[in-house]
């Protein structure tokens, strides 16, 4: 509200409104993050009786020369590059499918969305079973049946070539429903008359999709892409439970390395340094993404 600024009470009211959240964010996110930043320059180890001491950039040097961490960064990037587009495309396809007129839309929407309500730790457990190696595994069995026996059963989660893709599949399975719901809502917000205008103007279904649907979904698409990108840099639970980052770091991620350093090895300062590097990376990517999307469309 544009009510008078100056001495007006609204200024104070605003701070009151902001205060609880601000206190929470400061105490539980900002302060620990600054603490992490500080810790990253020390030699602090979990529970160590030695004085932490100033370590300079040692932790950063160590993190950046740790092949597992670097692999984690690369894996995260690969993960984002694959999962974001695939999941978005799938979500869009499902949304389009559900945006048609037919009986039972509600049911199917619920079914497709259901994986989203599953905690990742549980999803991971289910998929470990589905990925079971040997011909007895469900996925192996299915692929075998589909390819009429041409498929050689694999141990997906312990195969350097398959571990990361397997985790991607799991994540896509779990996350697509969210994309779908957002995009479905976006689809329903596109004025019907635009489709009608395009039809009258001579556009067939494909061109209507290209010229009306896609542009109309711009903002929801931006939203899901940004959220999915942020989330795909946070991948952890699946990795921890399904592959522990292996084999040969083939499926490790940054957060997984952070957690291993901090919790399994007690190297909290190293973990803090990794977190800081990671934060800078993700923030950079997010800002870049926002800027690109914004400029491209003019109004976002």
């Amino acid at each position, binding site marked *: 509200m544009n009510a008078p600024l100056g001495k007006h009470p609204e200024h104070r009211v605003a701070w009151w409104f902001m205060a609880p959240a601000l206190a929470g964010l400061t105490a539980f996110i900002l302060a620990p993050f600054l603490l992490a930043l500080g810790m990253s320059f020390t030699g602090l180890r*979990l529970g160590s009786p030695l004085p932490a001491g100033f370590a300079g950039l040692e932790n950063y040097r160590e993190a950046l020369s740790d092949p597992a961490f670097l692999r984690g960064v690369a894996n995260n990037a690969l993960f984002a590059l694959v999962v974001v587009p695939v999941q978005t495309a799938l979500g869009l396809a499902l949304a389009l499918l559900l945006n048609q007129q037919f009986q039972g839309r509600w049911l199917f929407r619920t079914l497709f969305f259901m994986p989203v309500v599953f905690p990742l730790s549980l999803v991971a457990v289910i998929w470990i079973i589905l990925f079971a190696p040997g011909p007895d595994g469900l996925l192996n069995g299915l692929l075998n049946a589909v390819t009429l026996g041409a498929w050689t059963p694999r141990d997906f989660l312990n195969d350097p070539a398959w571990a990361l893709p397997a985790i991607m599949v799991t994540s896509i399975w779990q996350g697509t429903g969210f994309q779908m719901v957002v995009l479905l809502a976006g689809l329903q917000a596109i004025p019907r008359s635009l489709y009608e205008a395009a039809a009258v103007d001579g556009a067939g279904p494909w061109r209507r999709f290209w010229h009306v649907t896609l542009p109309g979904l711009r903002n929801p698409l931006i939203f899901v892409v940004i959220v999915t990108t942020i989330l795909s840099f946070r991948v952890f639970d699946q990795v921890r439970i399904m592959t522990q980052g292996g084999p040969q770091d083939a499926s490790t991620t940054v957060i997984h390395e952070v957690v291993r350093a901090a919790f399994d090895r007690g190297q909290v300062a190293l973990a803090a340094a990794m977190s800081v590097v990671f934060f800078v990376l993700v923030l950079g990517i997010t800002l870049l993404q926002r800027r690109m999307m914004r400029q491209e469309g003019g109004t976002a």
Partner: protein
Amino acid sequence: VPIPEDEATEVITVWAHAGRESERRTLEAQVRAFEKANPGLAVDVTFIPEGSYNGQVQAAALAGRLPDLLELDGPYLAAYAWRGWLAPLDEHLPDTLKDDLLPSLLEQGQWRGQWYGMGMFDSGLGLWADRHALKAVEARIPDGPADAWTLEELQEILARLASSSSGGPVLDLKLNYGTEWFTYAFSPLLQSAGAGVMGEDDEPQARSHLDAPASVQVLETVQGWFQAGWVDPNLDDAAFTSGRVPLAWGGHWNAPAYRDALGEDLILLPLPRAGDRLVSGQGSWQWALSSRARHPEQAAKLLAFLLETEQVLKMSRANGAVPATLTAIAASEDYGPEGALRLFAEQLRDGYTRPRPRTPAYPVVTDAFARAFRDIRHGAPVADTLEAAARRIDREVEANHGYPAN
């Protein structure tokens, strides 16, 4: 668990791992018995799932909220002790107890000359086998620890087994187990070969141990088994029980299920030796007194109670592990002189076992070793992998200035 709340009682707080049902029941019963025998003392036991036990204890320790008495996983003892979370037990326990204790437990419970941990039982590691299958390939069946197979012998047997089973897997290495298994189960092979994960107290480093040629050679051999397709992934933990493989790298805890599955055909063999002498695994849950304990005397009293022969036997019966005292072993059905599992007891008693590296760096050590082992499993070059792991471990040791006493 209701705790009697009258003012005269002192409450001893205890954390224990929530093992199997029977184990939990037994401990609870023992605690009640202790309370009955010691009016005015109450015990408050919290069971914590094994999966999250270490994390929880560390978190509580950092927060200064450890209980009086707690269980911990043997190899972590040094780490906890160095951080000052534990109080030495020497002054609280009678020396007579030591005399009766398994030497493995004595070794495991001590660090830098002080006694921190005391187990009610120890673990046994060995090879389970199907008598028929071995007979079919005319394998030699060792009598005891002293005449264990050599690594080459095992390899040959595996090859024979494999060819008789048309190339399928023949060995279960319990690949479905968690991180700690790999250090526990396979570092003894390195030690047997004359190397090991780390040097002893006077040489606390991994370099020239973990990456020593002997270590490399042993693990290259094991890697060969993977590459030959002899090892079952064992996702369902049923590789041996379902008869898929005739040989399983395992321990005392497998006994009940394996007996059920194979009955008379089940035989227990020592691990292979990679060098002159067999080295097997040891170490299990131990009791320790927190340095912040508010009732150390009473807690020690409880501990002493738990180590009474009767109690040790009860626990051993509940979880199937090797009883902690020689007296109890002698009285045990399974581990006694004629017991089917006596091999486990012999190994522990006769010095065929060595503890995992007793260093405050252990969390890093086991992480590095397990990771290396898993990479080797998937074909990573053994020498490089081990060298990298050794470097990782040593960096940690150096960063802590070799863990000076404080």
